């Protein structure tokens, strides 16, 4: 009597029907999978270096595929940076001896002009993956990685060491395993700064993507399918309209990753906020809302739960996240001494090798030449900072203090800040060539194109953080505009301005490598400076000069940070923090 028997699948009827959100999310997942596989296949294709293309087709029909390949590079670099951050920052926060080495190293790496190293790394990576495109891909990914990883590691390390003492003690007393502690406490508590920093660094990464897809080493030029190489090829052939297409593709990519990836991530990270009260205007994301309404993410979560449990069990032998209270003094001392000796020996060997190499090739006199050129570039950086300050501080304050304007302006500024300035170079250079402005002066504008936004960005944030009651108090005392600026606004935005200034100055130094020497439509313009010195040495394969240039530039950046910015920063923190 099958009719009387209750239907075995009756439960399914009571479940809500397949919702359109599920359908949408499901299709989106499949599309992402397909595109990733397609791009990965291209990236791993075999390659004969001798016949490797030095340029790619500038047919706009190829742009979607190029964009896909570029995106893959960006995301692979982001994953690599995240893994690096997790490992290095955690090691530095947990092992005092590692911290003593890692922090200064990161500080210097952050200031080193990455672009100067491109040719070295390309040679290395090609040797690593013979006969495959992977070598060139890895070199490009590495260039992007170096623009992201140090920042992210610093931010994660900072959140690890500033972890609330109570939470740390609770975790230790519960005797969480190392693995559990990392995922239950360390990562969640550092999530918000990590996501924001990742988003900023990702924005900065586009610049290096564009610069690293077409690389010349010695007399050979390699081009990878990607938007950056597309622009390079279009510029070389003087096709400004095609550069326009690339810019459009770039805008779509920047906005698209923002909308589909970073916005949802930022909104999702809000759950890791530790303050008791939720922020009034917490970031929202349409995509995240959509995912939350779909049952697919939860289903995937359940499906992968056994994997998580397996990892939890597998990592148990690594032990409890606890350190002994007492370490025999002798053993600790011995460890310190061994560590110090190894580091000193390493540094001495490196210094010896470098001096031997430079001394035997171009001689130490080249340092003098590089320093002279460094001063010229320094003047350009100085001009940029001064001009950007004069222009963007008032604008930033105006935007930041008008909530309506800042709501509209914020996404625009974010786009401008993450839009790779080197995509705009061709238009600016074409203008210089037409009007006859020498690159000595014009280079300043090129360098400013990428770096000035950091000042604007931070000033807006600083100005919008000035408490409303303070502003109203100033108004009720009828202060003149000038008095208001001097007593409230300038002190109020100072810390944010300093942060922006450091970043902008660092960015300008780095940009000098691609801004002091440019070619357009078979014309090459050169402005004397440390940037063009490094760029010329790189393309000529002159490793000794590259080394000298990079060392001198690092000295400039690190020195200025120490002597100037750090001090300003301390003043900002002690006197002007709101």
């Amino acid at each position: 009597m099958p009719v009387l028997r209750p239907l075995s699948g009756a439960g399914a009827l009571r479940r809500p029907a397949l919702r359109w959100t599920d359908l949408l999310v499901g299709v989106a997942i499949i599309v992402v999978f397909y595109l990733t596989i397609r791009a990965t296949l291209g990236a791993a294709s075999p390659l004969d270096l001798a016949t490797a293309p030095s340029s790619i087709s500038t047919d706009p029909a190829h742009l979607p595929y190029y964009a896909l390949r570029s995106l893959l590079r960006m995301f692979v670099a982001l994953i690599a940076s995240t893994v690096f951050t997790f490992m290095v920052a955690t090691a530095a926060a947990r092992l005092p001896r590692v911290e003593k080495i890692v922090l200064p190293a990161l500080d210097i790496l952050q200031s080193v002009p990455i672009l100067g190293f491109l040719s070295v790394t390309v040679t290395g990576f090609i040797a690593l993956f013979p006969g495959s495109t992977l070598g060139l891909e890895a070199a490009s990914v590495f260039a992007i990685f170096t623009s992201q990883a140090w920042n992210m590691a610093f931010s994660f390390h900072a959140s690890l060491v500033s972890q609330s003492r109570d939470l740390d003690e609770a975790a230790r007393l519960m005797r969480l395993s190392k693995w559990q502690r990392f995922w239950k406490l360390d990562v969640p508590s550092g999530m918000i700064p990590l996501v924001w920093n990742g988003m900023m660094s990702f924005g900065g990464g586009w610049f290096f993507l564009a610069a690293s897809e077409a690389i010349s080493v010695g007399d050979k030029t390699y081009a990878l399918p990607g938007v950056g190489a597309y622009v390079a090829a279009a510029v070389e052939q003087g096709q400004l309209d095609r550069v326009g297409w690339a810019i459009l593709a770039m805008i779509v990519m920047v906005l698209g990753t923002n909308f589909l990836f970073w916005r949802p991530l930022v909104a999702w990270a809000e759950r890791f906020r530790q303050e008791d009260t939720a922020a009034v205007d917490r970031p929202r994301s349409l995509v995240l809302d959509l995912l939350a309404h779909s049952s697919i993410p939860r289903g995937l979560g359940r499906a992968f739960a056994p994997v998580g449990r397996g990892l939890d069990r597998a990592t148990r032998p690594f032990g409890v996240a606890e350190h002994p209270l007492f370490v025999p003094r002798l053993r600790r001392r011995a460890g310190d001494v061994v560590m110090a000796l190894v580091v000193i020996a390493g540094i001495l060997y490196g210094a010896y090798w470098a001096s031997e190499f430079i001394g035997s090739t171009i001689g130490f006199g080249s340092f003098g030449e590089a320093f002279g050129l460094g001063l010229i570039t320094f003047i350009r950086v100085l001009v940029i900072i001064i001009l950007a300050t004069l222009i963007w501080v008032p604008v930033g304050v105006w935007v930041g203090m008008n909530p309506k304007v800042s709501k509209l302006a914020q996404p625009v500024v974010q786009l401008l800040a993450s839009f790779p300035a080197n995509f705009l170079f061709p238009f600016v250079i074409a203008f210089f060539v037409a009007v006859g402005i020498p690159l000595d002066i014009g280079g300043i504008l090129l360098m400013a194109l990428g770096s000035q936004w950091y000042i604007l960005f931070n000033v807006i944030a600083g100005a919008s953080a000035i408490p409303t009651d303070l502003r109203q108090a100033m108004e009720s005392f009828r202060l003149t505009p000038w008095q208001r600026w001097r007593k409230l606004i300038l002190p109020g935005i100072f810390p944010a301005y300093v942060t922006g200034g450091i970043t902008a100055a660092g960015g300008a130094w780095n940009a000098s490598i691609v801004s002091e020497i440019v070619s357009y439509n078979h014309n090459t313009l050169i402005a004397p400076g440390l940037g063009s010195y490094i760029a010329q040495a790189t393309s000529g394969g002159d490793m000794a000069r590259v080394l000298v240039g990079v060392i001198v530039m690092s000295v400039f950046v690190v020195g200025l940070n120490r002597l100037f910015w750090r001090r300003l920063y301390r003043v900002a923190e002690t006197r002007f923090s709101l």
Partner: protein
Amino acid sequence: MNNTTLIAVDDVTKVFATDGGEKTVLDGISLTINHGEIVALLGRSGSGKSTLLRCIAGLIGPSTGTVSYKGTPLNGSNPGTALVFQSFALLPWLTVLENVELGLEAKGIKPAERRERALKAIDVIGLDGFESAYPKELSGGMRQRVGFARALVVEPDVLLMDEPFSALDVLTSENLRSELVRMWSEGTMPTQTALIVTHNIEEAIQLADRILVLDSNPGRIKAELTVELPKPRDRRSPEFEDLVDEVYGILTGQQAEPRRAAVNGGGPDAAAAAQGLETPLPTASTGSLGGIVELLAAHGGSEGLAEIADELRYEIDDLLPVVDAAQLLKLVRTQDGALRITEQGRRYAGADLLRAKEQFATLAVEAAPLVRHIVKELRRSDSGAIRADGVLSDLRALYGDQEAQQQLDTAVDWGRYGELFEYDADSGRLLLPTHPDATAAAAGQTVDA
């Protein structure tokens, strides 16, 4: 009650390094915690009671001496304890259930059993229905219940509590405290042994079988009381009130002893010691000083400390520094847990503002070593100005960074109020009121005040 010793603290000393010196926080502490008893560690802030608790939990190591759990000296977090924090210390990104389960997860217990035990603990502690809530959705009282559930679910041998009720409002803490007392007396509490750190005298008497009173600067065990009143205890009963008075008597009984020279021989410390700087200034504002003297005068010159604390809704950490300061300036006297106004105090309470300031200035120079030291240095200097850093570095050797700054802040507050000296924050200088840079500011302040 069986008498197995669970935790033994043997001659524990904890010394923290300071700028150019050392600060002894715990000094020669020995105690035991036996199975089935509830022990309270009572002391004012700075007595090192939290430090002692963290030594017992194995979170920090003592400088000398040992802490052992069931006879084994600790070298890492104590496996037989769970801690309830003052600040709750819940992971904000985990739900109530996940927070409670976490300790079991750390022990590698299977998911099904984990869930069952966590739900039971949540049920016992009165959190039913809140399993899927995030901590930020809960009130303080509910959050601390999660804190208790999380600690109890792992069934520790000893439950450690670090001022568990002091972040809650009066009604909520009363409610939670009496529920715990009930659970202990009914035997529904899975853990029978506990150590509670508190600065609330009544709380200690209400909960504990044994109270250890800690002295401050450095922390030593000053007295041990056994509470034999039957539970639940009635706070209004005369026996209870007698005990409260007794503890107040112990806490205010003697002035803080002069600090032992922290650095052996020579150095800034010897110089500092010569000026009496090792006797700390109680951290009390001039306003609260005036307030307590006036309150006493209004009450006819004498009042019990417990009653004053009750009336002002003050914890002992708020009240005792003010009492110490008033005592130091000879405005009041303590006697068996009661506070009495002195002749000086009566005059001070009756004086108008200007005269009160003059009297305060005289008393401060006479009785407060740090204020006297600064005034002396200022008079000795040619310019009528000295650098605050110099004073601060003398203090650092004795007190450590944070407390040194607090000492200086208090001295500056007192000096400003008595118009003895000025402090110019921009240049970091202490100035005599006659100094050209100070006159304007000082004159302005007199008018304002």
